[in-house]
């Protein structure tokens, strides 16, 4: 095993609470009607290409990417399009979606290989791999949902040296990536190989936090057993520290390089891909299977049956909560994602999407807001900030709408990890104000650049 590495600046260590770590992945049965949102990625929503009454097959394209930062949407089931309408997503806003009345049997669209066999022969070349990733609508499944094909396109003049697979899963509670590593080890490693071929490099590093020793050992063992097949892939244990899984943090931890302010990770010669996305890339390239399902962790301290479910997109989240033992009484908070970066939801019947990594049910004891007091300039937020920012200052100037000052203090470098808010002894919602300032400052910068 390689020596344990970590990033230097800041970071916190919240209680891990990986309650569902030992629960195997279960296939979740689909309901009669599924509702597939068209905007499942960061950027523009896809454009619907099916009409009411059309029969769609599993894996068939139903929405085409619109714009540069956008991803295709495929039908997760076989059935008839009941309507193309709006549906309330987790924020409570109405977003366009396709309603599909499902048939009992899956009928897969043409060209999709349905097999559990491990396919080790990569037939496509670099460009074809990236095109396939784009075609299959694969996005970053850690939560940010940034289209993966854009990440894999190395701009001219730059060279990718490393492919870093982000298996840190530093968010407390979430276990979906961990389970995938344990249960689909070989497929995942093939995915790493495909990404390496896609970006044109010989070196792939899998970064995993040391609280997932089982996965580290299993990966090490598998790579050693098939030395020829997985040449160039290495497992790098990382210290259990939040936000180890931040893109910039994991690059810093593994390579010691720092992404320059305002630049992309490719500047450091690294392409970072999430575990679930890597597995999806394997399925897309080897089996031609588009992204129509993912693993979702349903967990919480008072949840009867926390678990990991393989869910087709468009399945309402309340069915998952039902399967995990229903909504316990002391629950006040339902969170889409992990406790640090996830957002509370307004409704529980929102459809699962590409970015839904977990559904966390928080008890009143954990989630209740503590009394907010004044900032005493203790500087704990500045110590905790992994980006070396000064959250106490940023929160103050964002509150005063002084967006020149926020820009000067590099608010755009904030990765919104929430470490500052976590450590704040005065219980100030620092991240809220910083997110607000970041959104406003970003808009000002974009407007200026357009001129």
């Amino acid at each position, binding site marked *: 095993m390689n020596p344990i590495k970590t990033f230097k600046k800041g970071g916190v260590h919240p209680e891990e*609470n990986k309650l569902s770590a030992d629960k195997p992945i279960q296939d979740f049965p689909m309901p009669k009607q599924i509702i597939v949102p068209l905007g499942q990625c960061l950027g523009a929503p896809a454009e619907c290409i099916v009409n009411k009454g059309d029969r769609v097959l599993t894996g068939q394209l139903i929405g085409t990417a619109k714009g540069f930062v956008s991803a295709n949407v495929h039908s997760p089931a076989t059935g008839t399009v009941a309507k193309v309408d709006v549906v309330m997503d987790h924020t409570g806003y109405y977003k366009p979606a396709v309603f599909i009345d499902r048939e009992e049997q899956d009928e897969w669209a043409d060209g999709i290989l349905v097999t559990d066999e491990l396919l080790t022969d990569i037939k496509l070349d670099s460009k074809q791999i990236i095109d396939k990733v784009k075609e299959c609508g694969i996005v970053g499944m850690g939560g940010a949902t940034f289209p993966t094909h854009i990440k894999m396109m190395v701009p001219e003049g730059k060279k990718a040296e490393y492919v870093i697979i982000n298996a840190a899963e530093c968010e407390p509670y979430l276990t979906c990536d961990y389970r995938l590593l344990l249960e689909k080890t070989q497929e995942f490693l093939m995915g790493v190989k495909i990404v390496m071929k896609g970006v044109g490099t010989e070196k792939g590093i899998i970064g995993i936090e040391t609280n997932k020793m089982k996965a580290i050992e299993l990966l090490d063992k598998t790579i050693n057993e098939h030395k020829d097949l997985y040449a160039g892939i290495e497992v790098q244990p990382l210290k259990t520290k939040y936000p180890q899984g931040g893109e910039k943090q994991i690059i810093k931890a593994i390579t010691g390089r720092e992404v320059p302010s305002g630049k992309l990770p490719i500047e450091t010669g690294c392409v970072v891909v999430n575990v679930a996305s890597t597995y999806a890339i394997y399925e897309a390239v080897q089996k031609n299977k588009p992204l129509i399902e993912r693993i979702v962790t349903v967990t919480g301290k008072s949840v009867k049956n926390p678990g990991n479910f393989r869910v087709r997109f468009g399945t309402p989240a309340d069915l998952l909560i039902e399967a995990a033992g229903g909504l316990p009484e002391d629950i006040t908070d339902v969170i889409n994602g992990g406790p640090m970066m996830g957002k509370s939801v307004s409704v529980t019947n929102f459809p699962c999407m590409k970015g839904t990594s977990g559904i966390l049910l928080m008890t009143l004891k954990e989630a209740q807001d503590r009394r907010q007091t004044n900032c005493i300039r203790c500087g704990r937020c500045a110590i905790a900030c992994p980006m070396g920012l000064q959250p106490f200052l940023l929160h103050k100037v964002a509150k005063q709408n002084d967006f020149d000052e926020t820009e000067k203090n590099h608010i755009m470098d904030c990765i919104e990890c929430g470490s500052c808010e976590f450590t704040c002894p005065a219980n100030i919602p620092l991240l*809220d104000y910083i997110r*607000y300032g970041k959104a406003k400052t970003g808009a000002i910068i974009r407007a200026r650049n357009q001129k």
Partner: protein
Amino acid sequence: MSNTLLISLAVLGILGGVLAVVLYFVAQKFKVEENPLIDEAEACLPGANCGGCGFAGCRALAEACVKQAAEKGNIDGLACPGTDMGKVAAVLGLTAGTFEPKIAVVRCNGSCQNSPAKVHYEGADICAFASTLYAGKGGCSKGCLGLGDCVKKCNFGALHIDKETGLPVVDPDKCVGCGVCAKTCPRGIIEIRPRGKKDRRVYVCCSNTDKGALVVKNCSVGCIGCQKCLKECPFEAIEMRGNLAYIDPAKCKACGKCAKVCPRGSIHTVNFPAPKAEDPKALQGAEPAVKPQPQPEAKPVEVKTEVKPENTVTA
């Protein structure tokens, strides 16, 4: 000793004299002629630099007035919301252009009673931020969030949040119609409308352009786009914007007929004479009655917040 003193005095004196002459000629050469009328016009304006006129400040408006008066002989279209433009016109030797006093109008009636809370919000009290996070307490994605961005921005103290309804209220005596609140509101709920003749005005108190079915789910007084008012209006002053009726203040004659036919009580009439007791329909328009309606399928109430897990160990 005294010699040194005298020499330095003489040198400095001569130097000062020469430079003064140079400065005088430079100042003459680069003199900026400024119209004294600008100062006079500026003196008539409130000096709050609120930006309500559309210029950078009061002086910029004064400059624009002087310029337009010299070029066109009028000051039409230039108006400070807080001042009688007649005074400025008098200073410039003109009669004022048509200036209509304006007022901010909050186009949402989704109060705690009309649109009961389904979720609870805890987080930064900034509407612009909350708007990116969720649709709203009552579930209406176009309605007022009630966190008071407009109140904080108002330079004249004309807005406050009513504790009972959770909505901002405009004080007609203090509001000058500068429009800062309208620009601030992330959902564009506040509109600047003419105060109207005798201070009477009619407006649609809803901003939701969604289909009627979605509106009804979340609010008992939202406009459903039935177009009854559109058909009733004798002056063709009402147009549909999406599924929302909009009364064009330029065409509206403030007859109040639309308010009487509105099945949802979304159209509000302000400063109209009290309706006669035997006409219960008119009452609905003048004073939007709170109609408790059965809530369609109540959803579980969730706490809404940016969360931190148990604050136990910190690295």
